[in-house]
């Protein structure tokens, strides 16, 4: 089990691996050039330094709505490279037994350093919390899966915000400038359908899969990723999405992926205060029904799936999710097949429409 205990210096094993990963990144940029991009997330600047264009082209479209040209000192710097397009390899400093199912590398997670290998996307991420600097490596930028492109760097943001009242969570969010709802639940529960159905209303869109929440001083959600993903079987319910798909040739093996900036740029919002937690349940019935739920029900929809995806700092993350949920009323949204009813019910909840 990876425990944040010893190994907080650059001479420690995790420190030496971080230094080696950073040196390999610098070697990669020497060959293919450096591409720097900056993004603003909750009044902080994230600087992404890419070795060449390959990863930059794949990972930044989801973050484009946060891009800035300001040269402010970065609060977080991530150095990203791959081996296939740069020719620079990176060797693991551990054996097979060090890999945990949720990604943490045993012996390489300390108070200062975080190290994880995300299986499936096959991303190696190592963060020096003291220097607020991370290295992101994949073997081949061309093999980065669509889901990683839809929520790039979510683990880096999770680690970065560990000591702050912010937390990436597995949820969608829609609302108005004065307030909205967080739509929580595991994959397949109806988050995307609910969020995308709201695009045809006055509700704004802050994400359909991963958003950043703040629990103090008051509940607020921030848009991290300007993307939407939908099961291919559900595309007929949102037909307008088809013309803007990023991956129309890969729908036999991928969810449909769209970048809101190209499809519905006016619907993207930076965020809004959270007024309620909503857990969708797909019923197959025509009508959409909203009913009150217990806080624990919302927590069960939000916390296990989020904590599974994000390795490390689980206790802190659960405490932040708990603090958020305790401040908000919780509801179950029984999602019907008549999509216009979905935003109507949410607008009713937000006090913008009278219940019929």
């Amino acid at each position, binding site marked *: 089990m990876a425990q944040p205990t010893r190994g907080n210096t650059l001479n420690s094993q995790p420190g030496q691996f971080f230094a080696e990963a950073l040196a390999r990144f610098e070697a990669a940029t020497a060959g293919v050039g450096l591409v720097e991009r900056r993004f603003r997330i909750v009044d902080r600047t994230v600087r992404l330094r890419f070795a060449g264009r390959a990863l930059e082209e794949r990972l930044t479209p989801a973050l484009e709505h946060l891009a800035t040209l300001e040269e402010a000192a970065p609060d977080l710097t991530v150095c990203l490279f791959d081996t296939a397009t740069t020719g620079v390899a990176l060797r693991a400093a551990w054996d097979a037994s060090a890999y945990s199912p949720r990604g943490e590398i045993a012996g390489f997670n300390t108070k200062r350093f975080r190290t994880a*290998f995300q299986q499936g996307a096959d991303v190696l991420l190592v963060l020096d919390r003291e220097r607020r600097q991370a290295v992101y490596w994949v073997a081949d930028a061309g093999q980065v899966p669509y889901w990683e492109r839809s929520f790039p760097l979510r683990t880096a943001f999770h680690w970065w915000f560990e000591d702050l009242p912010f937390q990436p969570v597995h949820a969608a969010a829609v609302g108005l400038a004065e307030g909205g709802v967080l739509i929580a639940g595991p994959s397949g529960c109806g988050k995307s359908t609910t969020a995308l159905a709201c695009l045809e209303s006055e509700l704004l869109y802050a994400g359909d899969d991963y958003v950043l929440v703040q629990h103090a001083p008051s509940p607020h959600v921030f848009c991290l990723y300007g993307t939407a993903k939908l099961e291919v079987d559900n595309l007929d319910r949102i037909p307008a999405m088809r013309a803007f798909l990023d991956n129309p040739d890969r729908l036999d093996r991928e969810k449909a992926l769209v970048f809101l900036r190209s499809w519905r740029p006016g619907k993207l919002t930076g965020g809004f205060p959270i007024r309620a937690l909503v857990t969708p349940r797909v019923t197959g019935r025509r009508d959409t029904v909203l009913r009150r739920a217990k806080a624990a029900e919302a927590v069960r929809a939000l916390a296990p799936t989020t*904590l*599974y995806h994000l390795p490390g700092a689980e206790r802190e993350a659960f405490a932040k999710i708990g603090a958020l949920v305790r401040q908000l009323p919780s509801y179950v949204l029984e999602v019907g097949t008549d999509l216009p009813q979905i935003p109507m019910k949410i607008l009713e909840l937000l006090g913008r429409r009278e219940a019929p």
Partner: protein
Amino acid sequence: MDSVTVAATERFCVASSKIVWQSFDDELVVINLESGTYYSLDRAGAVIWRLAELGATPAEAVEHVLQSGAPPAARRQVLEFWGKLVQEGLISPSADGVEPQAVPEEVVCTWAPPSISVYTDMQDLFLLDPIHDVDEAGWPSRPAETP
């Protein structure tokens, strides 16, 4: 499933740092990040969890709930519930010499038989095949999977 029998005078602790919990109104939600199983404990169950977490023995927990006004039948119910927590791998005997912590005043119990709900729908995600094979650079060699 029958619960296991526990030694009434043994001290226990939360079994792993990968077990996390939070309380909400009258429920306690516990997540075991190693197995993917998560749990909901009712009010009485949450009190027993809190006592176990503080290092009380099962016998001390029984004494605590009886002093709170629980009926004599609570003795068996506490011990059975304690056994369920052990059986689920949520608590385990603590190392010798661990001192129990004082029970805060707010840990009180309006007695009802304690219950625990077990949720296993996340287990498929948690129980990925362990990595056995790595390439010459030390990275796992496996086909991509969807999240």
